[in-house]
């Protein structure tokens, strides 16, 4: 193991790893930090010199670092958050008879490239408005198809809590997107 080949790894793989992390964490600083932690963990590992496919190996380490960050951001969930999310907060969406206050409108992802770009920007803004812990859980589940049980184990929450939070996240993003996209 030499310093030279660490530098090779850094120049060959750091951009890839950075994009991988950014796609999942969405925060450039967090993404930089996990990539740094990944390289540090890599050179400390006894199996460092034996890796025939460094990128795959580094990505494996990175995935764990990303989960750690996600776990931290979701850890702040409290019992009262869940209680209010289960019922109280949904009053924004439904009237007392359980009907939609604003019924979902007809829309879909635009085909046209330019419109699609605008659509994704609005979606990005809506994700940013969502509380971090909800956005994180939502990304893990709906974007990266993390198994529900794995999420619950990783984040130390019950499956029922996960369903409630995912519901809350989907409701929030859908409504935000609808208001801003149709209104755009």
């Amino acid at each position, binding site marked *: 193991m030499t310093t030279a080949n660490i530098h090779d790894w850094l120049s060959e793989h750091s951009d890839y790893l950075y994009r991988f992390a*950014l796609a999942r964490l969405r925060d450039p600083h967090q993404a930089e930090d996990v990539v740094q932690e990944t390289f540090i963990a890599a050179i400390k590992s006894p199996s460092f010199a034996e890796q025939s496919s460094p990128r795959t190996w580094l990505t494996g380490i990175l995935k764990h670092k990303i989960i750690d960050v996600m776990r931290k951001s979701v850890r702040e969930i409290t019992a009262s958050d869940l209680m209010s999310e289960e019922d109280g907060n949904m009053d924004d969406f439904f009237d007392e008879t359980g009907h939609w206050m604003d019924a979902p409108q007809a829309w879909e992802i635009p085909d046209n490239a330019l419109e699609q770009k605008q659509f994704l920007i609005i979606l990005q803004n809506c994700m940013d408005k969502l509380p971090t812990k909800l956005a994180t859980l939502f990304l893990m589940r709906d974007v990266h198809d993390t198994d529900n049980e794995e999420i619950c184990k990783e984040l130390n929450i019950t499956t029922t809590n996960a369903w409630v939070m995912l*519901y809350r996240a989907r409701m929030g993003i859908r409504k935000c997107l609808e208001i801003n996209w149709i209104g755009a």
Partner: protein
Amino acid sequence: MDCKQASQLISQSLDRSLSLRERIALRFHTYICEACRRFGQHLNTLRVALKRMSANVENDTNITMPSETKTRIAKSIESIVD
């Protein structure tokens, strides 16, 4: 079943298998309720759109890690190796 309950089940159907009873009740509701039908379509649309967004980031080779960060990482690695 009202729309509030239906929307909860629609969301949960993405995370677990609904019971036969739930599926029947939900199907009955969405058959008569256009708003909830749309809600279900939108949740699928959201998944597709977000996957696209995420893939765009992952595959966009114009996105690179800032060079200061690379230098910082190189230094911290050297300090460990030395």
